[in-house]
């Protein structure tokens, strides 16, 4: 051990607002319930040109928006790992699928009834072939996420890691993703990760 890693970039998406390194990047004036319109506004704000976005479920859209900011238009190392977690799994999409079970089921809804599909969508868009894992926990477990990320970086299994929390239930989203690299200013520790997560932007 003894190697140092750094929190290079942080994105927070919560309550119609997007923060990058604790600075407000974008805020929507829409009603909080207009979640799909919020995603569309954010997509346009970030000047994304990726039609597949509109076929994705909400979790995947959140992941794509967040990583677009984290990666900042730079090509990422193919061996970038993704270590995500949340509480509600894919419940937003699960409900939609569940409601159609006795009639005609939509395959394009069903494919998103797993929380790790967002990892697949990010990997496809950014051509990442590194490791990925998705944990389910009641709250953000900074220690577990930091430990796992540290192992991947220390053993050379990943060049960089995107880690954090991406949760969604009843149109309420909470996204906290960090890009952990081998160069930077803020030391990557579970305490720093926890503090960043709990940093109140309001």
């Amino acid at each position, binding site marked *: 051990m003894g190697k140092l890693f750094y929190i290079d970039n942080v994105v927070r998406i919560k309550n119609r607002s997007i923060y990058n390194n604790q600075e407000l990047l974008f805020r929507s004036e829409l009603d909080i319930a207009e979640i799909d319109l919020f995603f569309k506004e954010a997509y346009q704000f970030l000047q994304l040109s990726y*039609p597949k976005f509109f076929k994705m479920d909400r979790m995947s859209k959140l992941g794509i928006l967040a990583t677009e900011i984290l990666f900042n238009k730079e090509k990422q190392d193919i061996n970038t790992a993704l270590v995500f977690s949340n509480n509600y799994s894919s419940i937003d999409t699960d409900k939609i699928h569940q409601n159609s079970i006795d009639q005609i089921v939509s395959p394009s809804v069903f494919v998103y009834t797993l929380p790790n599909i967002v990892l697949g969508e990010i990997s496809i868009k950014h051509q990442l072939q590194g490791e990925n894992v998705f944990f389910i926990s009641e709250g953000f477990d900074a220690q577990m996420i930091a430990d796992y990320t540290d192992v991947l970086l220390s053993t050379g299994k990943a060049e960089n890691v995107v880690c954090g929390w991406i949760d969604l239930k009843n149109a309420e989203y909470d996204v906290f993703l960090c890009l952990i690299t081998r160069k930077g200013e803020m030391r990557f520790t579970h305490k720093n990760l926890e503090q960043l997560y709990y940093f109140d932007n309001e």
Partner: protein
Amino acid sequence: MSDLRTELKVSIIEQLNLEELSVEDIENDEPLFGDGVGLDSIDALELIVLLEKDYGIKLTDPQQGKDIFVSINKMAEFIEVHRTK
């Protein structure tokens, strides 16, 4: 006749979430799975659902889709023959 084609385009754009396309953007003979409209394998499955839901046609083999979903024209021709709704 042309109503069915327009109807299909409207349905496809809505069902498949083709947000950035309008009815005018899709040519009747354009390959749906090519670069333009750019549908993929999950979209093909959704088109099978659309055939059943809107036109009462049930396909049992996803491979059949390869011939039917080539273009709006081919889809319309197939529906005109086989529709039960």
